[in-house]
């Protein structure tokens, strides 16, 4: 077992910011990420062999990412960066089961900052399993990181400002973007506008996207939801309907788009598995994406020495993630005695102020894009609601009739959540559907029980002895790592 004073899991904006804060305080943090390069999802760095880094960042988000990477690089000699390395479980509260280039290791952290990020939420609808239906993030990664267009003609749908970002990127990459379908109505957006004015910079960015899309003649249709994707071997057309304020589709107000690609998601779900495995107390906050660990003002969870930052602790975007990461890094450094109280409070104050303002802005957006119960009415009895096990809604309904709404029984009876993804894709929507159907609250239903391993791990990986490892030398930002194990 290897012991480190500070370990940070996740090298997106939150993890990087935490590492920078800790390095600034004189510590030597260990930063672990499952991807080949740091940056997380939003600041994902393409493989250097594939996409040149010569071009200037084209928008504010990319510029912020570049700036964050630059600040990270300044401190890189203090950092130990383990890329292509996965934390597959947490033993006890702060012992990490790790699988990386050195094989299997157990790392014990005196202070542990979890910044696992989030993944996109796609509730089931008829035809959603057709090839060509994917998440906006998945489509974005294809063009941005891989230089490949995932299709020719795309409709983008769901909710949230991310749809606009993706629309622009897909269009610039050469895809025909037939439109963006946003569930929030124009009226609601307009009503929220005055509160968004409190943060004119961010609002300006958002309006910029809208403006550029308008100039590119990409229609944005508000107050609509996708009710069906049709096709045989792949998606050929998408049916969209007007929706009510609860996002329930109106069967009379439907129209059809002919596309070969549908990029659809309704916001993000925090990757709460690591905090759960660490034993953190969880709570459900719909506006922040679902189940998240309870935290105090310093990003400390209910488990002493375990902190969470970024979307993994509640989805609020990259800027909030960065500041939360800084807070967690400062606080953990303070705990470790690397920062005295006065310095800590001084460093913390502007971050807390900025976060407060950011969160107020985000709260408006998150409230607008909160998941609404009408989405649970879109699947039909024949719709597959568990992608892995190919279970239809009717089959899960039979399970509910059998066992009531006890989730463990439902799982055993129907195999919902027992497939390859272990509930990641089906469970958030299934829980909402069960809540809507039964009158139980989501809190009563509870989160999915999480068990290791997180991510791919083979029997052979665990059969091998633990590697005896010194710290991996810090990886420079320009190199591309070897293949993941």
């Amino acid at each position: 077992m290897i012991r480190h004073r500070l370990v940070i899991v996740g090298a997106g904006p939150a993890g990087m910011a935490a590492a920078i804060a800790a390095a600034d305080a004189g510590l030597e943090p260990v930063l672990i990420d499952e991807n080949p390069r740091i940056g997380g999802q939003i600041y994902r760095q393409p493989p250097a062999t594939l996409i040149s880094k010569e071009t200037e960042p084209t928008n504010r988000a990319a510029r912020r990412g570049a700036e964050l990477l630059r600040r990270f690089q300044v401190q890189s000699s203090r950092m130990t960066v383990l890329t292509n390395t996965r934390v597959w479980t947490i033993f006890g509260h702060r012992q990490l089961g790790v699988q990386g280039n050195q094989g299997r290791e157990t790392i014990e952290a005196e202070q542990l900052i979890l910044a696992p990020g989030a993944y996109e939420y796609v509730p089931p609808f008829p035809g959603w399993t057709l090839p060509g239906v994917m998440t906006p993030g998945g489509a974005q990664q294809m063009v941005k990181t891989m230089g490949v267009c995932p299709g020719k003609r795309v409709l983008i749908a769901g909710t949230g400002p991310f749809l606009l970002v993706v629309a622009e990127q897909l269009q610039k990459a050469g895809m025909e973007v037939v439109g963006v379908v946003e569930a929030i109505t124009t009226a609601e957006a307009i009503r929220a506008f005055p509160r968004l004015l409190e943060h004119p910079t961010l609002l300006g960015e958002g309006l910029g996207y809208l403006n550029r899309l308008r100039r590119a003649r990409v229609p944005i249709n508000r107050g609509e939801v996708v009710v069906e994707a049709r096709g045989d071997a792949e998606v050929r057309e998408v049916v969209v309907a007007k929706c009510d304020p609860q996002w329930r589709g109106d069967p009379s107000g439907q129209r059809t788009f002919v596309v070969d690609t549908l990029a659809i998601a309704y916001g993000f779900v925090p990757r709460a598995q690591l905090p759960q495995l660490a034993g953190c107390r969880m709570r459900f906050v719909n506006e922040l994406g679902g189940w998240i660990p309870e935290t105090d003002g310093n990003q400390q969870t209910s488990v002493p020495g375990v902190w969470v930052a970024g979307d993994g602790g509640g989805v609020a975007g990259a800027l909030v993630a960065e500041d939360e990461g800084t807070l967690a890094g400062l606080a953990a450094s303070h705990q470790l005695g690397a920062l005295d109280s006065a310095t800590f409070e001084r460093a913390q104050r502007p971050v807390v102020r900025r976060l407060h303002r950011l969160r107020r802005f985000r709260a408006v957006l998150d409230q607008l894009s909160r998941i609404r119960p009408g989405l649970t009415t879109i699947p039909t009895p024949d719709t597959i609601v568990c992608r892995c096990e190919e279970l239809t809604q009717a089959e899960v309904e039979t399970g509910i009739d059998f066992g009531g709404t006890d989730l463990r029984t439902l799982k055993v009876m129907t195999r919902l959540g027992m497939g390859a993804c272990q509930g990641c894709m089906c469970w958030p929507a299934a829980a909402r559907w069960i809540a809507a159907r039964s009158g139980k609250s989501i809190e009563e239903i509870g989160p999915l029980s999480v068990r290791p391993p997180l991510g791919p791990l083979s029997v052979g990986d665990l059969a091998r002895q633990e590697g005896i490892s010194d710290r991996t030398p810090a990886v420079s930002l320009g190199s591309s790592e070897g293949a993941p194990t």
Partner: protein
Amino acid sequence: MHSGCDAPEVRRTVRLTFDGDEIFGFEGQTLAAALLAAGRRAWRFTSRRGEPRGIFCGMGICLDCLVEVDGRPNVRACLTPVAEGMRVATQRGAGSWGAPA
């Protein structure tokens, strides 16, 4: 199709096979990207209904993009970098465990 955006001067071509046919990708690309560029949108048929699946989440969480690589099924195409000589095959159901490359 490969979009040319921001490509470096030299991209190294990687040759691999999919169901016996030669396809190519670029060094650093994932298998999913190479397959999509080669015009394939689905490379798996599900166990129960025999339905086609390709990429969905693109980040290794949904486990939809599974494909057989060098005799090993259940490989996430979206996370696996292409390698010269890789033998990729459509996965049907649980697939079959052949000899490694």
